[in-house]
């Protein structure tokens, strides 16, 4: 988490980033992975709004696995979720990086919203979470 109140125009902005590995026994194909990414974006946005976010600044996710990558993002408008990338073959384990920038929520609430969304969306797809380091490598 970061304190962004250094420049006056940054007032009210909070950010949170997290990374983890998600896995399950049955492989996910590209289409299911895209559904996961889309559902996660929706859940991250909803979870932040539920906690009182004034504006969804930008929520981004990067999914990386041996066969390819996906990046997803939303600015919280209805229907604006975008998922792009290279699917590759079915995978049973992937790295997820989530980066949320939210207006009008304390940093702890942005963290809670992100953690809840990842937990619930992972459970929905039968994925188990393992921690990952802060490096993007």
């Amino acid at each position, binding site marked *: *988490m*970061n304190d*962004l109140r*250094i*420049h006056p*125009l*940054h007032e*009210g*902005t909070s*950010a*949170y*980033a*997290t*990374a983890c590995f998600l896995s399950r026994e049955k492989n996910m194909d590209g289409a299911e992975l895209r559904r996961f990414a889309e559902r996660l974006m929706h859940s991250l946005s909803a979870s932040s709004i539920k906690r009182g976010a*004034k*504006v969804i*600044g*930008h929520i*981004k*996710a*990067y999914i*990386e696995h041996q066969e390819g*990558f996906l*990046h997803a*993002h*939303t*600015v919280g*408008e209805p229907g*604006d979720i975008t998922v792009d*990338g*290279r699917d590759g073959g079915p995978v049973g384990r992937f790295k997820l*990086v989530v*980066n*949320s*920038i939210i*207006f*009008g929520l304390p940093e702890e609430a942005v963290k809670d919203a992100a953690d809840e969304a990842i937990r619930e969306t992972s459970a929905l797809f039968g994925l188990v979470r393992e921690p990952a380091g*802060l*490096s*993007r490598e």
Partner: protein
Amino acid sequence: MRLVQVAGWLGSGKTTLIIALSKGLSRKGIKVAVLVNEIGAIPVDGRVIQDYGLTVKDIGGGCICCQMAGSMMKTLRLLREGPNPDIVILEPTGIAVPHAVKKMVLSAAPSGEISLGPTIVLFDTTRAAKLLGYETLQRAVTTQLKDADIIALSKSDAIAEEAFAKAGESVRVINPRAQIIRLSVTNGDGMAALTQVVEEMTVPA
């Protein structure tokens, strides 16, 4: 080494434009590197740009217009001593204040090492009413637009012509001196013009 800033509010299409612009400039024989700054401690955009085969350095964990100024200057020096590109395309965070970034580069860079190219500010025309009408965003977005040399009216493919024209008029009032370019990376609208302008403003004849 010239610095081209591609600024603009969160979600305005900066990363997508930078990928297309870098490819366009590279095809013209111009050596390009990208420097990406993100608020989040774990950068995402740099990784996305890297996936398209471009040279990228990223700075995460704060905004270069205030907190991360030292990291940015250090990274620019590394680029100069390493790949030494003709142009560094800088993607600041979506909340960055372009004139604060410019001021910082001018004050911290030793004379002749790094010069400033144009500041391009993207404006998402599909969210014009919210960006210019919602109090939380309006002041920051207006400041970004005022700092622009070039304003790219983005996502022109995703908005009705009348609404697009209205967004353009609002932007023109905020910054009457900027060059305004209609842009859609999706259908290529304005990409050749923008690439040409950046080339003319950054590469010596």
